[in-house]
């Protein structure tokens, strides 16, 4: 009776005209917002360029004009990277929140980013000349290792409650961060690595993007494909089992996708927390509880958030640039406190 109801309801909501219409409207607005913020981000910066210059630089690229060069070589890759990586962190957060049924899950808070960063620090210390593709792979492995560590340590006879997972994640993150700093100091790498701690998209070039973007897009597509099962898992273990969802397999797949997204992103821009925390909650407010809808909306909104955060980081105190991670944290921390306060009855 109960499962039938939920199945009915899930199918109904996704199929109902009103739900779909709202989803399409949200999608449309998010796309529009993304396009607008990307245009703004390309045109403003240390040197302001008019929107028409941006447009012609994209349509008819002329390598002899400085403005076109700035746009093509500096602004465009970094804005695209901010968008792609914002989407990746947001989707990773949504997946983690879904499969762990933890409203406070996020790649930064759960220590996954710290694992990836730790691996990158190790690479810088011992194999300084690795190509970017190897760095990306190792960063992903770091994410996997720290996630395994957290799940192993966070689980206990009492079960893996959201709070326990979050606390274990935070302490693993503190540990890995501390070890990373120690290695960085010992091998005198602090200068090279400051960028990875705070996060920054300024260093992303086209050749990074060529490698990064396809992986992230495929992982996001896979996440959307998992969406239906994830939304059922998010309703509870029993419901999911009753509905015939292979919970274990979906959990592993979902976490794997999230780890790919987070690990690959960290290898390019360093650790940026809170995107994956804030965005899925906003998406849920907008389109409901169906992860098939939450994931694409999260991707778009995450892209908008990071593009704007990058723009803000450049605009606050030009020509100096602030760390993009700081800009996001300034929004994300109050939100986290608010969530922790609101969820306290359930935690």
């Amino acid at each position, binding site marked *: 009776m109960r499962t039938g109801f939920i199945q009915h309801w899930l199918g109904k909501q996704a199929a109902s005209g009103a739900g779909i219409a709202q989803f399409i409207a949200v999608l449309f607005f998010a796309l529009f917002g993304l396009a607008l913020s990307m245009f703004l981000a390309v045109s403003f910066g240390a040197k302001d360029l008019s929107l028409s210059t941006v447009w012609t630089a994209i349509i008819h690229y002329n390598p002899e004009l400085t403005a076109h060069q700035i746009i093509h070589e500096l602004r465009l890759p970094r804005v695209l990277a901010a968008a792609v990586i914002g989407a990746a962190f947001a989707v990773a957060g949504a997946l983690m929140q879904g499969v762990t049924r933890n409203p406070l899950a996020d790649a930064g808070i759960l220590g996954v980013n710290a694992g990836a960063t730790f691996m990158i620090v190790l690479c810088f210390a011992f194999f300084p000349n690795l190509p970017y593709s190897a760095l990306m792979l190792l960063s992903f492995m770091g994410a996997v290792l720290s996630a395994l560590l957290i799940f192993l*340590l966070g689980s*206990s006879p009492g079960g893996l409650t959201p709070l326990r997972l979050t606390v274990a994640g935070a302490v693993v993150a503190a540990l890995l961060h*501390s070890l990373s700093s120690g290695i960085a*100091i010992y091998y005198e790498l*602090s200068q090279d690595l400051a960028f990875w701690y705070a996060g920054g998209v300024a260093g992303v070039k086209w050749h990074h993007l060529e490698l990064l973007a396809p992986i992230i897009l495929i992982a996001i597509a896979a996440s959307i494909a998992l969406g239906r099962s994830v939304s059922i898992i998010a309703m509870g273990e029993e419901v999911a089992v009753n509905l015939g969802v292979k919970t274990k397999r979906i959990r592993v797949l979902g976490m794997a996708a999230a780890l790919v997204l987070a690990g690959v992103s960290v290898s390019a821009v360093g650790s940026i927390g809170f995107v994956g925390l804030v965005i899925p909650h906003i998406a849920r407010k907008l389109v409901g509880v169906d992860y098939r809808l939450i994931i694409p909306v999260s991707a778009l909104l995450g892209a908008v958030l990071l593009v704007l955060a990058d723009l803000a980081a450049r605009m606050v105190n030009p020509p100096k640039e602030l760390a993009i991670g700081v800009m996001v944290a300034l929004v994300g921390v109050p939100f986290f406190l608010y969530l922790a306060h609101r969820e306290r009855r359930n*935690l």
Partner: protein
Amino acid sequence: MEYTLDRRRRAMTVGAILMLIAAGIVILSLNTGSIRLSPMTVIQTFIGKGSPDDTMVLFEFRLPRILVTLLAGIGLGISGAILQGLSKNSLADPGILGIHAGASFGLILFVTFFHSMNSMSSLLIPFFTFAGGTAAALLIVWLAYDRHQGFLPVRLLLIGIAVSAGFSAISLFLSLSLDEQTYAFTARWLIGSVWGRDWIHVYTLLPWIAFIVPYVLLQSKSLNAFSLGDELAAGIGTPVRRQRLLLLACAVALSCASVAMSGGIGFIGLVAPHIARRLVGPMHQHFLIIAGLVGLVILVAADTIGRSIFQPNAIPAGVVVAAVGAPYFLYLLRRTK
């Protein structure tokens, strides 16, 4: 009665052993580093028979640093013990709860205003870190305290983690506008490198420890009462509200003054009380001072290990402590229900 006496005797023995261990480590740590002082030289220098060079190295360079480390270790250990007693939460630690993040915010404000760390103005550093730590503590209490349920253990940690992330973000924001040298200093400070190495730093830290620790020891009865629960504590005549605030202020002051001179070292406040409880039991009149001594031993050992094993670039004591303390925390977390 006999039981109490027995406990007291045990606490004294344990305390004496810990002091001996600390003395051993100090002698070892004097015998490492770029200028080594052998135990014999140290003793000779102390009784005034050393060469002028040794005297200068010992009294001007090594001794102040060791004293700062000892005092900071005591402060951190006792601060963690108070916090664990007040919140009835065996996972409480000033670092994890975000008090250190508040303190580091205060430190960065200080560097932004004064630029220099070694002049007389360094006497003011603990006040800045204390103000930052208090801000963080108030925020945590405000967000985590529930009128009906008190401090729910894991929620307290969660709020602490969030507050800590917030203050770190603001600190990072401010620290990026510092000049390169100050930035390098704050970066090292943040991960817990014992930097206080002049007599002025000893004088800065000493009054905080020397006044607050005895006061807290006098209050160990109320801490015992708190561990019975608020209602019972009120029942046996403890002014619960006022005492809680006062003791919380003491804990914050101790940890903030300590980290002001020793850098943001976490996990000592977590580990030291646990070890102390194992050694002498939960009565605060014995347990507090032992927690302080265990903290002292840990910090001196971590500082020595960081400096002597990892040559030529010393690793901050905070990293060594975290490498041991964080796994211990995870172990405790796994065991708690």
